[in-house]
């Protein structure tokens, strides 16, 4: 060690790039939404900061916790690893779009009944994953549910209740 060390993430004198903004058109929870985003903006931040849909949560911003799970064109994606610009023209569904005419989705009801949440921060991601999991036919057994829900971390440890909620709705077959 030479007695000094620099925090060398960039070379000295480097300039920040100019901000590039692009128009993006999304169909979010059934409504056409247009916004202009920084090319670096993730779909997660566009939903939260741009469209004020704060039900979707940022847990790690690295695609490792599942809190930001939303559906894009019917498939679950990690919105923190999706650039907003790349979602142009897509259909996006978030936790705010699960209710139909004021009636909660059966999974939302089941999470309440089975206490599948504590702090509630991971809950939107858990429910969005669970909805897709059932639609994909991946909820056939408890072991299958546990395996396919393992991309959604819950630090409060509500896992057994989350499994119970999904099991109930998957078994009932009224999850459409």
């Amino acid at each position: 060690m030479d007695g000094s060390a620099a925090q060398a993430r960039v070379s000295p004198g480097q300039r920040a790039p100019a901000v590039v903004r692009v128009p993006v058109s999304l169909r979010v929870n059934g409504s056409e939404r247009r916004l202009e985003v920084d090319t670096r903006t993730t779909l997660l931040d566009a939903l939260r900061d741009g469209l004020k849909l704060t039900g979707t949560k940022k847990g790690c911003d690295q695609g490792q916790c599942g809190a930001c799970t939303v559906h894009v064109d019917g498939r679950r994606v990690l919105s923190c690893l999706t650039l907003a610009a790349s979602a142009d023209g897509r259909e996006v569904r978030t936790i705010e779009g699960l209710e139909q005419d004021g009636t909660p989705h059966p999974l939302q009801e089941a999470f309440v009944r089975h206490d599948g949440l504590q702090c509630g921060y991971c809950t939107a991601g858990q429910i969005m994953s669970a909805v897709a999991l059932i639609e994909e036919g991946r909820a056939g057994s408890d072991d299958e549910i546990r395996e396919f829900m393992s991309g959604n971390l819950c630090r409060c440890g509500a896992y057994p209740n989350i499994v119970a909620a999904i099991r109930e709705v998957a078994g009932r077959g009224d999850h459409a």
Partner: protein
Amino acid sequence: MDRPVVGEGIDRVDARVKVSGRATYPTDADLPGLAHAVLVQSTVAAGRLTAVDTTAATAAPGVLAVLTHENAPPLREARDRLGPLPPPPLQSDRIVHHGENVAVVVAETFEQATEAARLVTARYAPSPPVVDIDDPGAEHVRDPFGSDGGTGDVGAALATAPVRVERTYRTAVNTNHPMGPFATVASWEGDKLTVHDSTQGPSNTRIGLAGTLGVPQDDVRVLAPYIGGGFGSGLRTWPHTVLATVAARHVGRPVKLVLTRKQMFTSVGHRPDTRQTVRIGATRDGRITAIDHEAWQTVSIRDVNPEHVTRASLSGYASPNISARDVQVRVNVPSPGSMRAPGDAQGNFALESALDELAYELDLDPLELRLRNYADRHPVTGQQWSSNDLRACYRTGAERFGWSRRDPRPRSMRRGRHLVGYGMAGTSFFFAQFACAARVTVTRDGGAVVASAGMDLGTGTYTVMTQLAAELLGLPVRRVRMVMGDSSLPEAPVAGGSGLTGSMGSAIHAAARNTVRAFLDLVRDDAGSPLRGAAVDDVRVEHGRIVRVDDGRGESYAEILTRHRQDELTAEGSAEAPSEDEPVVPTGPYAAKFAEVHVDADLGVIRVARLVTAAHCGRVLNEKTARGQLVGGTVGGIGMALLEHTVTEPRTGRIANGTFGDYLIAVNADIPDLEVHFVGGPDPTTPNGTKGCGELGIPGTAAAIANAVFHATGTRVRRLPITIEQVL
């Protein structure tokens, strides 16, 4: 028919707002003109800053300000209700841990602030860090909490004990990692500061911020109606919260600062690692004659962390000779802090593992060993327990688990290619109740609003306090609304030490009683009231009515308010911490835990197959949320036992696994069905009979699993987390 409102596992009152995405967490706060702050943290663990070049960052698009130690305002070293705060940020060029704040960048957007933070260039004159608990060069602090103690003569008793075990155990650094990255949104209006913060105690953070900033407490308001978990990391007023307030004042706009997941490793505490030596002496028939427990733990260079690792060794078993000592080792790591069951989680692993080892030395069932040494009073002070149903926990747990089916010989039980192990452990947790105030407002429509500044970090406080207030006011649950998480409400303690249920419950008990008293005052001379002249002890409450105990006559809250032309009636109440020095000592909860593990005989992969907990938590206010606390704690305990290990590079002091991909916490597939059984009765210390159950799920879990791993494999693992290579 009427059903009791307390005890029943009603759905969480805040569940619907959470499953719909409408609950507002600190990071969701949105204010006009909001700017975004991003931290720059040090890349060395010890030394001095020689320069911080902010030129490029300041010139970057959208940047409003860059604060470093050279231009940050002076901040005070302050205290809150829990003790000294961590050292205030950006006050000197000294660096004492990797990931220490060296700058905060404020910009128009999050992306711009993130980009500009990369352009800050810090230069250091580093010195070699000390990071290892065993480093001979580290400073040691003996008896750091003034808690060392014991009874009798341990040395003599050990020397003459017919059977002895002496073992050293180690536990790893764990990091809290609530799912919600800690966030602060700060805004100033003149001298008034409003802060949305990931805190477990709005009142406490208000005190901490006011002290650090040198402003009156009345000028600070802290809001935390919901936070994304905490597990202890929200107890203290951390530097990033202070920096958000400083940045907001500097740029004259509201500022949002959200820690990155990586910064969650360095900014909001962790469970320190330990090295513990336990010596136990016993007679051949399994009577413990001596317990000696010395626990070493790490702490940061400039901070304090009250973490009493040996606590339970002073009170757990009926030994005539006990000595327990704690030592802190100062190393260049971030400030530690409370993590669910701080100290107890590590200390229990050592003590309950050593007892299992003693049971094998004695050829005695580990459960029987514990029953033979049950402490029917405090073994050091001689005080009676306020309540202690630990033996019922052992009996119920063993029965539900099927402990009698256990063949005690290691490696004796198999299932296919898996070695099967049964292990158990007992645990206690301390009693905590702190000063708390609450306010009850009964409105003319016959409903009530109950307010206290305490907060619900996911434990169920909103729900159980709603139930309790409903019971104490004689109202249906749906007519009571809890308002919490706001420092402008009556002061409440932090949600910590498993103490908020007892604290706030006692305050609401007092406030409800004062409410009834206020109604009786209102009708004291009211010829139209059947309650005229009644005292608070002459009446009971039911169905929204106050009625005389003697003749059952009474009237409703609504009738009284209407007749007296009042819209509402408000009363406050408060409760203090009970004395610990009485002949009967306030006694916390107990649990017995029984684990079954399956270990792949060829690959060493360990899985917890099931885990049964029997717990004495006093009166259970809500069976569903209390179970959630025990289950959640157990999930954390499984992580502590098998997965969690914050790894610090010895040469640099850098945390080497600072992501969720590398720092492993339990995922859904790691967790089997977890059984919880509540046993025992209410505790007489508080008027509501509770003991607190938020942390009881963790201690005992790792020991039960480690003991099961020994039973399965014949390999005793004395270092957490238990990993494959340790059992192969």
